[in-house]
């Protein structure tokens, strides 16, 4: 990372590019006196590409990103009413994520930056999510306790400032969104599974199946969902051919277990956060699973009990998007940082590298911690 002279730039306009999973996205954002304004925000989804496989297939995702990215960037520029020369920088997700797709967006970002001699910011996708609550007007102010829950990630992060993050807890196996998707797959509900499980749960009896609450009552704020998923698989096997009501009841029981676990872990995360960074009273949820209304409601309830403000970005900025990448890029530029054109795509890139090294969530192996 190199220092780039942006002294006295009260206004920064940045193109953001996001291709780390199954959304091809581009956005233009202007940061004016610290206030973000999203000028355009385009997302090209790939659900139809992956639906037959009931999950995201990395090679298919990478191919779709190549096909769709140019037009997505062009649309974002057009909607913002700007030319590339009007930009102050280009921000592209450089990881963590599916490496094939990350490369597509990062290389496109490098090319645009090079063509117009603009600084490149290689953004950590998790930093995008961590800052996403600040996209909305009057969004969260630092520091805040963030629950980041998506298909690939499940962490508590103390967001102290731009670039200053402390991971307090993480999942030791599956991400929360992954657990939702796997249950959807077990029940043949379709893809993507999260919203379908949530919808089915609304029609079901949450007390019918006695499912485990992994990690409940344990010290710290780590998660584990593998056992809960296995318990669901066992119930599905026992049911043989589950009826629609069986499915709804299992979804409801599964979501009830999730709510208990999330509430318990969040309480512990608050207990860790408060003494270290003062009782700021700000709890934020981000990531695709933060779009789940039941989880939002439970977090809101919990926050109220403990005198916290609860904040979650609008739904469109919970799931993967490029506005949050543009914001992270603009914030970094404002601090005078940009990256080299040789920056690598990183499939693994912990936001808090220190925490990941000290307390790896996965066996580190030769490739290092995942996130």
């Amino acid at each position: 990372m190199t220092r780039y002279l942006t002294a006295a730039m009260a206004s920064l306009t940045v193109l953001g590019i996001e291709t780390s999973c199954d959304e091809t996205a581009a956005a233009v954002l202007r940061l004016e006196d610290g206030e973000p304004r999203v000028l355009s925000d385009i997302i090209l989804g790939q659900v139809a590409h992956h639906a037959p496989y009931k999950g995201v297939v990395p090679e298919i995702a990478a191919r779709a990103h190549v096909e769709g990215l140019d037009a997505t960037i062009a649309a974002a520029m057009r909607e913002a009413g700007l030319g590339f020369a009007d930009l102050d920088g280009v921000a592209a997700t450089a990881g963590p994520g599916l490496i094939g797709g990350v490369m597509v967006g990062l290389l496109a970002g490098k090319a645009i930056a090079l063509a117009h001699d603009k600084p490149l910011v290689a953004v950590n996708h998790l930093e995008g999510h961590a800052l996403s609550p600040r996209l909305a007007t009057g969004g969260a102010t630092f520091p805040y306790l963030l629950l980041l829950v998506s298909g690939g990630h499940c962490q508590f992060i103390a967001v102290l400032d731009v670039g200053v993050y402390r991971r307090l807890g993480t999942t030791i196996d599956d991400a929360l969104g992954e657990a939702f998707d796997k249950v959807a797959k077990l029940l043949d509900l379709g893809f993507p599974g999260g919203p379908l499980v949530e919808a089915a749960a609304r029609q079901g009896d949450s007390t019918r199946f006695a499912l485990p609450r992994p990690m409940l009552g344990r010290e710290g704020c780590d998660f584990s969902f593998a056992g809960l998923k296995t318990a669901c698989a066992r119930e599905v096997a026992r049911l043989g051919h589950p009826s629609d009501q069986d499915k709804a009841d299992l979804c409801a029981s599964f979501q009830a277990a999730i709510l208990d676990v999330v509430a318990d872990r969040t309480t512990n995360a608050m207990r860790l956060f408060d003494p270290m960074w003062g009782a700021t009273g700000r709890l934020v949820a981000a990531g695709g699973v933060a779009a789940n209304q039941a989880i939002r409601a439970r977090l809101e309830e919990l926050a109220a009990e403990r005198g916290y403000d609860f904040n979650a970005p609008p739904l469109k900025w919970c799931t993967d998007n490029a506005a949050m990448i543009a914001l992270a890029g603009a914030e970094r530029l404002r601090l005078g940082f940009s990256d080299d054109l040789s920056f690598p795509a990183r499939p693994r890139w912990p936001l808090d590298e220190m925490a990941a090294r000290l307390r790896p969530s996965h066996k580190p192996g030769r490739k290092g911690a995942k996130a």
Partner: protein
Amino acid sequence: MSGAPLVLAIDTSLDSCSVALARGDEVLASATETMQRGQAERLAPMVKDVLATAGVRFSELDRVTVTTGPGSFTGVRVGLSFARALAMALNKPCIGVSTLEVLALRAGERGLRAAAIAAPGASYVALYEDGAALIAPRACLADEREALVAAQVGARAVAWTGPGVGADIVALARRAAGVDPALYPPNPTYLRAPHVTLPADAA
């Protein structure tokens, strides 16, 4: 040759990262590094260096061209996503040329020219006569290459390139200078479906 277009050529589809800047037959600057991975890191700095060496500004480029494969899926995407975005940002045409076409026509266009690429678990072939495709790039078995070509042209002599030869970046630049961009879109030539099977119950 000052009337010829100024072409930036990029190839990352096989085992190297190559960049050349050419006007007609004159190569203003070029760079090639052998690598099986790492093109995503090296490509942009190499392009920057090649233009700087030639003293050319990006805005002066007339065309950007890139090999479309077949080759490594990742390598193909690195080159294509970079070249496409660069051309878009400069508002200039981006010309995609099959790696097989670049190989076959490396020494010129006249006569019968064929190219072969061998990758783990796959083999690819194409055949051209005076620069026009008789066999468009396709996958085949390694031991049916010769027969496929013979079926088209009988006993006539064919100049072969490959397998095991890298794409000549200058040949790519020269080819791209003369073709109609509308006929050479920068789309990947994977020639192989993603390695994935449908869930058993999805049929």
